[in-house]
């Protein structure tokens, strides 16, 4: 068995099994907790919990004016690499085929060179993000090992993907194997670190919205 076979076979099987296990464990562990546990009466005239939840999700997509000045770069850069990742992961045809093979659903993709360009922007944006994290005193203070591991797990698939597409550094089959292995590592780490925010951000923002709405606070 060569490296590519190992990556496409046992490594991916293991990673996806861990991913399914960990993600469902954490999601159900949270979602099966009792709902609506706030015992105090809601403030008079406060919106329904559902609309507060929605508002919590939507409003938090954009920072308040006061935070814009200090956090503008973090905010914009965050959008760049998140959107970049979404485009590269979900609109590159080989990736769509991977998803189709797993879940049977597919959609049209983008030309490979567009994906390549977006991939480069994403990589640069990710590097800017980690540089910012490591140089900003406040961010450095609140960063934990988890933050750095999550960054590495995100960056490696982007880097190896770009190298594979451009045939840089090694033979294509080695690069593509390393790319798949890095994705496998991403899947394994995903449920247990901060990457899980890809699923949890919806619920945490919704809960913030509900709590604020309940107290009649402005979001």
């Amino acid at each position, binding site marked *: 068995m060569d490296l590519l076979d190992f990556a496409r076979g046992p490594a991916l099987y293991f990673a996806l099994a861990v991913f399914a296990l960990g993600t469902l464990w954490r999601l*159900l562990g949270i979602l099966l907790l*009792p709902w609506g546990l706030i015992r105090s009466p809601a403030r008079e005239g406060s919106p329904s919990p559902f609309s507060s939840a929605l508002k919590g999700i939507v409003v938090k997509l954009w920072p308040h004016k006061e935070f814009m000045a200090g956090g503008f770069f973090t905010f914009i850069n965050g959008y760049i690499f998140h959107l970049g990742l979404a485009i590269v992961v979900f609109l590159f045809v080989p990736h769509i085929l991977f998803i189709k093979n797993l879940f049977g659903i597919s959609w049209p993709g983008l030309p490979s060179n567009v994906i390549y360009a977006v991939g480069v922007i994403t990589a640069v944006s990710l590097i800017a993000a980690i540089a910012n994290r490591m140089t900003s005193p406040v961010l450095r203070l609140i960063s934990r090992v988890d933050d750095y591991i999550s960054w590495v797990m995100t960056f490696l698939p982007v880097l190896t993907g770009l190298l594979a597409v451009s045939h840089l550094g090694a033979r294509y089959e080695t690069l593509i194997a390393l790319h798949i292995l890095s994705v496998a590592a991403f899947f394994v780490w995903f449920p247990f670190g901060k990457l899980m925010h890809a699923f949890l951000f919806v619920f945490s923002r919704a809960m913030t919205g509900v709590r604020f709405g309940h107290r009649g606070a402005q979001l």
Partner: protein
Amino acid sequence: MSDRQTVGDILAQRGVSRRAILKYAAWLASAMALPPSASKAIAQSLAAARRQSVVWLSFQECTGCTESLTRSFSPSLEEMIFNLISLDYHETLMAVSGHAAEEARLKAMEENKGKYVVVVDGSVPLKDDGVYSANAGKTNLQTLQETAKDALAIISVGTCAAYGGIPGARPNPTGAVSVGEIIKDKPVINIPGCPPIAEAIAGTVAYLVTFGKVPDLDHLGRPKAFFGDTIHDRCYRRPFYDKGLFAKSFDDEGARNGWCLYEVGCKGPVTYNACATLKWNGGVSFPIQSGHGCIGCSEPHFWDKGSFYQPLSTAMPGMGAGIAAGAAAGVALGAGAAWLARRRQVAYSQQTSKKEGA
């Protein structure tokens, strides 16, 4: 040499013109990626060279590799190769059989000790003392070891000889291995393919005869001149790949428009061979040109890499059960964790209401 005449003498006797030799030398120079200036030197040394004694051994194979060479659509090439070499032993092609054939092999080995080339097609079975393939009372392993002992070099022709090929595919009932796994003290050149391209066989033999040395090989023992690029690197459908235009089935609009075959399982991106440049049937076409994706036949274990029709970027088949087990365990753990948390919550609220009551 079994034949004291030079290649030049033989070609002259057979009425092959000097011009034809030059043309062949030019072809060889370009096929082996040598500078054009090399072709004159090649022509000269070819003419002066002795014919290369070749012992061709056929083991666990289908004869497709021999067919590829002898039925190549470029008879001049085929003629040229048979003019360059003295094929002293080839079970399929030689007229004699039985003891006479074996004697021919032993005689060629004796007379050309240290100078003859062994070409092997087919894999070598090792299981159960190699009983699965034998001839003249000897197992393939014995014949190979005996013949390779005094050889100049070995050329493994076809994926079976180079990497075990189809006989070596799972579950490999005969314990088939490649020639390179047995012969460790001689240069082994692999020319894989199922079958290999005739020009790659001919070019490699011609290089050996001309330069008396092994051409540059890649990490899998293949001549870089023929196996230096992937099919994908040289594929004429590549612009469609780059534009994201893919055939989704073999008779859809995309297939009719000649779009990239990645989605229908093409393994061109990880397959090193010269099909896209030298092509087949005398340069007429190659699998991708005729509408079928590359199956990766010049790569080790191509038979065991999942379906030919499954895209390269998908996981190999057989992982459904593992993921389902992982998901089931995740559901159980998640539900269990939530249940425990709920119990703690109930116990806590009972405790606090008791305290409040007291």
